[in-house]
């Protein structure tokens, strides 16, 4: 049975095509200002790229911030449940998921079969989100994709104490002015996110989970993953499909929708 999961995030729209749980194809684009348009673009991209007609796909589930802007989906499900189902699909023993996306971060506790036992989301603040990293990348004039590898070359993590993205940006600017190495500043930014997210996740006692996975676009940044491991004192699994985990979960749920 062919199904499609579409995850319309605040920054990126992701879509996957699956056949009875096997991942066949994935597609993504910037969400931009029109969530519905972005959803159509990944949907049609998946159909065309795999020479499929609409009727061949038996179920579509939408998730993410734009989940209610996908008129052709059979159902809308929150990204909390989709990330849980996606993580469970790829690694059944996962008991906690930390998802850092463009505009929020979440910690989810899982039971068997990807059942959500509890979840927690960041408070209304950019700290600990992908957006925070974007702002910092701009201040440092570094391509965000290079953040992970650059932080690995740091001598130490320059201290960034502010939790506010605007204040942290000015801290970064003053560190630059003092001649601090970019690599060290980036490591400091990662440490700030790591401790922020770990503090939130700590309220759910994710540290007690046997197996912990990080999902969402920010998981591609190895520096954040390592900072999170350090702050949580717990190893963190990252799947190569971290960014499309929500879409994978949605496509799995579409089998039952």
């Amino acid at each position: 049975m062919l199904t499609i999961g579409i995850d319309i995030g605040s920054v990126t729209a992701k879509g996957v095509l699956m056949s009875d749980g096997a991942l066949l194809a994935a597609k993504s684009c910037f969400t931009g200002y029109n969530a519905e348009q972005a959803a159509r673009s990944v949907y049609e991209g998946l159909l065309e790229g795999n020479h499929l007609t609409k009727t061949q796909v038996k179920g579509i589930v939408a998730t993410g911030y734009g989940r209610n802007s996908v008129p052709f989906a059979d159902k809308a499900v929150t990204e909390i449940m989709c990330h849980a189902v996606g993580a469970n699909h790829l690694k059944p023993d996962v008991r906690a998921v930390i998802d850092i996306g463009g505009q929020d971060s979440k910690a989810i506790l899982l039971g068997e079969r990807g059942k959500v036992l509890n979840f927690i989301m960041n408070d209304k603040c950019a700290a600990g989100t992908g957006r925070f990293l974007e702002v910092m990348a701009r201040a440092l004039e570094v391509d965000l994709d290079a953040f992970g590898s650059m932080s690995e070359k740091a001598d130490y993590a320059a201290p960034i104490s502010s939790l506010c993205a605007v204040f942290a940006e000015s801290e970064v600017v003053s560190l630059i002015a003092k001649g601090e190495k970019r690599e060290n500043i980036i490591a400091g930014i990662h440490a700030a996110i790591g401790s922020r997210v770990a503090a939130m996740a700590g309220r759910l006692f994710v540290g007690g989970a046997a197996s912990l996975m990080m999902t969402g676009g920010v998981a591609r940044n190895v520096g954040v993953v390592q900072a999170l491991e350090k702050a949580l004192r717990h190893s963190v699994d990252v799947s190569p499909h971290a960014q499309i985990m929500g879409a994978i979960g949605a496509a799995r749920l579409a089998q039952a929708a």
Partner: protein
Amino acid sequence: MSDKNPEKDTKTVKSEKKMRDIMTAYYIDAKTARQNNKKVAWITSGGPVEPLIAMDIIPVYPENHGAMIGASKMGIDLCEKAEAMGYSSDLCSYARADISCATVNGGPIGGLPAPDMLVCCNNICGTVMKWYEVQARYFQVPLFIYDTPFLHTEYSPEIKRYAKRQMEEYISFLEGVTGRKMGRDRMMEVGRISYAGSQLWQEVLDTAVSKPSPMTAFDAFFHLALIVTLRGTQQSVDYYRGLLAEMQERAKAGIGAIPGEKYRLLWDNLPIWYRMKWLAEKFAEHDACLVADTYTSAWCGSMQYIDVHDFIGSAAEAYTRSYLNLGVEKMARIVLGMIDKYDIDGIVMHSNRSCKPYSFGQFDIQKIVERERGIPSLLIEADMVDERSFSESQVETRIDAFIEMIRENKVAGR
């Protein structure tokens, strides 16, 4: 949910119109007090109002007014005005709205009638003391502060003596401002009526134990107005008697406020006044009924400490033991009691940027509830009046995910 519209009629509570009429008449009375040679006292929502009623002084509640400002979506404008006057945006939005509104006579009813005196009881928070001092200076009127020590642990003999003595001081203050003696028999009568009103309000809230519940917390937020503003008057007793009959009838007939009620939730903290409709519809869409809340029950929660034969002697204790004047452990006990009483599936906590005493212990209460009842809770960050602290899509995702989780729990059969 258009398919639910036909059932909309069953939602209409007949008493609603009566409530609007009473509140309109009340505000007209208050605004024309001077012409009728009556005095107006501004008083905090949790303050002992009964002596005012007994002395024929019209009580006016800046907090009730704040709720009206919030519900009419006039909060941002008035909060910004207060900020321009020099008040921090971290200050309570009721305080900001009230302080700026007094200077421009804005808001939905063109401002409150100017006070002849202020009565501030700090059993709900500490902000009220500075807020009322500001207003006492602005209006050049006397201020009485009724100081109820915070009950970290017990109601000690020292607290008892201290709180009780202030009741007599309070009465002398009122006698001084009005130049009249308080009739003690009349005071007894008002105390009796106040108790009867609180009891009826508790009974109204108790009808929500029925499945489906005949009312939601959103209804309670609306019907609350009289037990706050007209506590101690026969009018409020009559009103709640009528409302109770109506709710009992609905409960008996099996009419639920949410047709097809599936999940029963508890609300914690003040309402998000400017988003009541949106939130009510959001929960209704999920067949979830907020059957109870910690907020509206605060006006009847400590009435067991009232002795109707000695109101003046016992009221101090009831007012000191108000929900927001208790330590977190005691608050959690009350929440656990409500979970059992109303058979709650989950708690929705409004982390209210304005109300620190209400929001501060929520993480701990969450933990206690989870440990002792295994009930999940959701935290929504917002503010009761200042809409700038509300993010619709973030709140929506949290509510949707919370209900998905509760649904799964129910399916699994907890």
